[in-house]
């Protein structure tokens, strides 16, 4: 279905960011304008999501140029769900940053940059053209480069050097892949590529290109041998920034992997074997990283890496239930990981530090808050009936059906190690009280009640979504099986993009 609605999620943050630039010297007003922008983005995302969930694939030809020649935006159920989740995460982080971002950082353009970042995210989820996807990736990385260095502390700059290098390298590899693909097939439209890949006689060359895409997106999504930049950089910027990075940026890489591989390259046994090994190793090595770290945010960073593996496992299995599980896991992970970083940031605000041996007695001081934190932390583990549980069941079911024992072992071991990491945090920082505890405090004690509400409110909001994903599993799994059906059957995507505007065959 052709609709101009699709441009709105991209336009909305752009307009907000431009308006915000006019209030450069007034950070306090920026807070309100930015909040309005986040709310408008959610309002725009809802109708797109509802329309996409009816099973129709929305398309929009930019400038009314027909599909294989012009740029198209495409929104299937997968993109629709991600657009809605991105706007919800944006809103939560937007509220949180009102209390958590110091005015020094805000005066260097924190708020406009967040909106530019969100614009890039919406753009990548909706792009139906591989070069357009590259451009949106660049929008994301340039905004994230500035956000990660904002403030210019030593650790931040060191983390940023690693982050910038790896992301620039990933972009070059992605661009190389695009160049080769264009050279072989002569088109950039994803749907058109999907048609031509299956007809192309250059099978070997196309598989080599698939590896280029795997490495390029793999660096961005932090899969096994390519993730070392992530735990070195994600814990350095302020909480709201690492929350948005942790929740969304790596997921864009996974989204691109799932999109490109389900449309273009899947079906090759070598690539599927490679993906399943990568998935298992990512899950286990990330989880081991988490249990040997002592800094809360560093533990969370390793958990991001570990849980990327679950989504890659779903892609590697590539059966309807496994893809549905991967999509479900991705939705859960976006919400849960953002919330985890917000929880970590709030603990820092309360205690003034993040080393789990030094943060003590949270439970005795703030019992109710601790319960909220616990729910957020244990939904990441997937303790039933919290949201992480159902996608793991689906993935396990998928891997049993495929007889892939290593993925089963990987999922179970990684889940167990995640539980271990969380229980360790819980017993060391929440339950234990020591007599010789150093009394350190953060800014939380000086905050007014309304500021505290701004910190806790987003956590509760994301927790509510996370609980919905857990308790509304019936609805969500229906949604995910629709997503999986559309991803498995690339013909519907191709027809929706090329069908209406199909031009007569050109003889060449």
């Amino acid at each position, binding site marked *: 279905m052709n609709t101009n609605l699709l441009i709105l999620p991209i336009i909305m943050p752009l307009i907000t960011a431009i308006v915000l630039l006019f209030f450069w010297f007034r950070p306090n007003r920026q807070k309100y304008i930015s909040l309005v922008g986040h709310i408008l983005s959610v309002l725009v995302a809802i109708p797109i999501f509802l329309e996409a969930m009816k099973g129709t694939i929305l398309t929009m030809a930019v400038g009314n140029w027909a599909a294989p020649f012009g740029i198209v935006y495409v929104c299937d159920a997968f993109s629709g769900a991600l657009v809605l989740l991105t706007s919800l995460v944006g809103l939560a982080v937007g509220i949180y940053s009102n209390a958590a971002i110091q005015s020094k950082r805000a005066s260097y353009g924190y708020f406009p940059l967040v909106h530019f970042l969100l614009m890039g995210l919406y753009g990548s989820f909706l792009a139906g053209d591989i*070069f357009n996807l590259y451009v949106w990736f660049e929008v994301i990385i340039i905004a994230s480069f500035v956000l990660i260095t904002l403030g*210019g502390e030593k650790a931040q700059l060191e983390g940023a050097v690693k982050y910038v290098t790896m992301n*620039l390298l990933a972009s070059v590899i992605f661009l190389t892949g695009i160049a080769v693909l264009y*050279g072989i097939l002569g088109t950039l439209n994803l749907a058109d590529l999907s048609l031509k890949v299956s007809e192309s006689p250059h099978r070997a060359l196309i598989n080599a290109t698939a590896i280029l895409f795997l490495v390029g997106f793999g660096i961005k999504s932090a899969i096994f041998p390519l993730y070392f930049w992530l735990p070195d950089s994600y814990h350095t910027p302020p909480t709201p920034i690492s929350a948005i990075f942790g929740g969304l940026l790596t997921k864009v890489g996974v989204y691109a992997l799932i999109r490109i591989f389900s449309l273009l390259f899947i079906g090759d046994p070598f690539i599927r074997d490679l993906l399943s090994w990568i998935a298992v190793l990512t899950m286990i090595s990330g989880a081991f990283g988490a249990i040997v770290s002592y800094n809360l945010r560093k533990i969370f960073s390793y958990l991001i890496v570990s849980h990327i593996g679950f989504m890659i496992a779903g892609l590697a299995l590539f059966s309807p239930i496994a893809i549905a599980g991967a999509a479900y896991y991705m939705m859960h992970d976006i919400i849960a990981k953002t919330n985890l970083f917000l929880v970590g940031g709030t603990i820092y605000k309360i205690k003034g530090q993040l080393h789990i041996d030094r943060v003590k007695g949270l439970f005795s001081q703030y019992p109710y808050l601790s319960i909220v934190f616990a729910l957020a932390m244990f939904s990441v583990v997937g303790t039933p009936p919290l949201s992480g549980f159902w996608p793991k069941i689906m993935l396990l079911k998928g891997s049993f059906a495929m007889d892939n024992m290593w993925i089963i072992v990987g999922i179970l071991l990684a889940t167990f190690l995640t539980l271990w990491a969380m229980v360790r945090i819980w017993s060391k920082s929440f339950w234990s009280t020591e007599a010789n505890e150093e009394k350190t405090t953060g800014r939380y004690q000086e905050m007014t009640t309304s500021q505290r509400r701004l910190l806790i409110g987003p956590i509760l909001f994301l927790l509510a979504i996370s609980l919905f994903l857990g308790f509304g599993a019936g609805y969500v799994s229906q949604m995910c099986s629709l997503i999986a059906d559309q991803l498995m059957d690339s013909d519907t995507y191709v027809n929706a993009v090329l069908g209406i505007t199909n031009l007569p065959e050109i003889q060449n």
Partner: protein
Amino acid sequence: MELLLAISIGLLYAAGIFMILRRSLVRLILGLILLGNGANLLIFLLGRIEKGKPPVIPEGSTILEAYADPLPQALILTAIVISFGLQAFAIILVKRAYRVVKTDDIDEMNTTEEELV
């Protein structure tokens, strides 16, 4: 011409990766710039090089005649502009990092790996 371009692209990629693997920050940036240029030339080469042919097909003529593909040029232009912005940022970042960390050696940038106490 194709062979010459292919060799120079290979050299640019090789030199770029070699420079990234050095320990100096400045060489890191140079490596990234070389890699970016290599990728741009690769798009140019893979868009098929046609000498002296217009990118526009005149009315009434068949598409069978050789014509220059204008799309790679547009892609390269976009890629050049993007990489220009990113490289400018990277250079400033390296300068700031050098000022704050007081070293050019990437191996000594390891505060983020130590546990923050």
